[in-house]
């Protein structure tokens, strides 16, 4: 780089740092506020305490919601990985009529606005006479996590050399054996990454859940959303911080297992 670029580069760096402050500010503030002792949303906190964490961890309201979130996220992850893995494999490996159409179909839960998906599911379940339950909520979450699994895994499968599968076939392996002993182990990292994505997408989802939860099946994001509507105190910051810790831990795990940028769209 020539010297005239040095000033420009300095500006660029300063701007990047300013932008990162903008990106992180709302998250940092939430963490900070959660340690304030008084019932004030004060940042930086002045009287430090863990009072709100104790309060949140003693609150059946938040604990039930956390439990629901966890169950739904685990079930949705299992569901979308079981459905999405063979689908991704077929999309990459086979040519068949309407293949593009099927690919678009499987990604369409990302294209239709979630608000509309939520309303459509709400009236669909109502028309079938299904009351809001963990099952209906899980079905909604399987639908929206499926595209992420399909996309992450097809990106991985594209990188597999079919010669390996061919060799296994020539050595007498059956289809399921190839699938189980060759393909799955080779895309293991993609599989883990898509599990983490699916889990987090479900765990953090607010829009679909808003339409599909009942008082008994409230999830954590919905509990936060409704709580914030009528009162603002640091307990929300505490529960949010705990939720973020879960996300960060899983995300670090995911970034070790696969490229996170695949989730970008």
């Amino acid at each position, binding site marked *: 780089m020539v010297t005239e670029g040095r000033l420009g580069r300095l500006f660029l760096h300063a701007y990047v740092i300013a932008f990162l402050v903008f990106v992180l500010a709302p998250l940092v503030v939430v963490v900070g506020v959660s340690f304030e002792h008084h019932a004030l949303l004060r940042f930086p906190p002045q009287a430090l305490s863990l009072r709100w964490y104790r309060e949140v961890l003693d609150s059946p309201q938040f604990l039930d919601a956390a439990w629901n979130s966890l169950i739904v996220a685990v079930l949705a992850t299992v569901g979308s990985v079981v459905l999405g893995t063979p689908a991704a494999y077929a999309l990459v490996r086979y040519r068949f009529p309407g293949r593009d159409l099927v690919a678009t179909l499987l990604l369409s839960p990302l294209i239709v606005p979630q608000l509309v998906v939520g309303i459509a599911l709400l009236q669909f379940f109502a028309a079938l006479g299904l009351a809001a339950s963990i099952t209906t909520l899980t079905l909604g979450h399987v*639908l929206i996590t499926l595209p992420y699994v399909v996309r992450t895994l097809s990106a991985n499968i594209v990188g597999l050399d079919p010669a390996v599968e061919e060799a296994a076939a020539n050595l007498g392996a059956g289809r399921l054996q190839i699938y189980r002993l060759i393909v799955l182990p080779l895309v293991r990292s993609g599989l883990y990454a898509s599990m983490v994505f699916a889990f987090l997408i479900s765990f953090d989802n607010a829009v679909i859940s808003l339409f599909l939860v009942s008082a008994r099946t409230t999830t954590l994001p919905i509990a936060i959303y409704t709580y914030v509507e009528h009162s603002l105190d640091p307990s929300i910051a505490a529960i949010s911080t705990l939720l973020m810790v879960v996300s960060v831990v899983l995300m670090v795990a995911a970034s070790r297992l696969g490229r996170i940028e695949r989730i970008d769209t």
Partner: protein
Amino acid sequence: MSVVAERLQAARPRAARSLPWVVAIGPAAVVVIVLLVVPSTALFLLSFVRFDPLRGIVYSFTLENYLAIARSSLYLQVTLHTLRMAGLVTLACLVLGYPIAYFMARSKSRLAALCAALVVAPLFVSVVIRGFGWMVLLAREGVVNQALVAVGVFAERQQFLYTDPAVLIGLVHILSPFMILPIASVLRGVEPALEEAALNLGATRWGVFRFVVLPLSVPGIMAGAILVYSHAIAAFVLPAMLGSIQTKLMATMLYQQVLVAGNLPFGAALATVLVATTFLLLALVYRFFGVRPW
């Protein structure tokens, strides 16, 4: 699809070829059809059904729901307001995000790696939490007000929370990754040698940007703009948290009609308009720029 991928497919193994693809793809396709295609179609059909405030849904054909939207100046205003807000969000994401994308694509420094991680990280934090964070920041006693008063921009604290600018800031915050990542990925594919060549041939830095970098990154910009715009049109949670009760956007209106007023047919008509607007936009961009939005 890359040439390599095509070639890989051409050489697919014999055993795999005989595996019926229907078995592999069928269950996932059925789930999406049952949980998305059927309910959306039903919702669409419901928009042509009458709603009686006393008796609820009456199953007879009507265009009344659409006519009500077309006739009322309120809904036109709301639609225009939503499209304008989404436009502003998209523009802000582009202007603020482009330098970040460029930096991520070109720099190999530690800061660039940090940047790449931090741009993606908030995507994994619930939108509800990020909304709450902005509520704390923008509150009357919040950090933003404190700072602006301390620096002397304002003599006294301002009402930021529950206003349109708050919604704008919040939406830019959650949607900027959708602009930055596609642009960065396109710029990564642009040879830095092109820029050096232009510089050697006497172009100014601005000229290099204007005539080399920017035109080459148009596909990334378009992809990002579509993503941001379509998400911004349909954003619900953040406007509900940061906006005022007077801020009427298509999504908040839709929510109100369905869950508060219980007028599902009218909500269905609003949803149809929302989806039609989004798809029309995607189709236009696809038609003129050949960019696939997904």
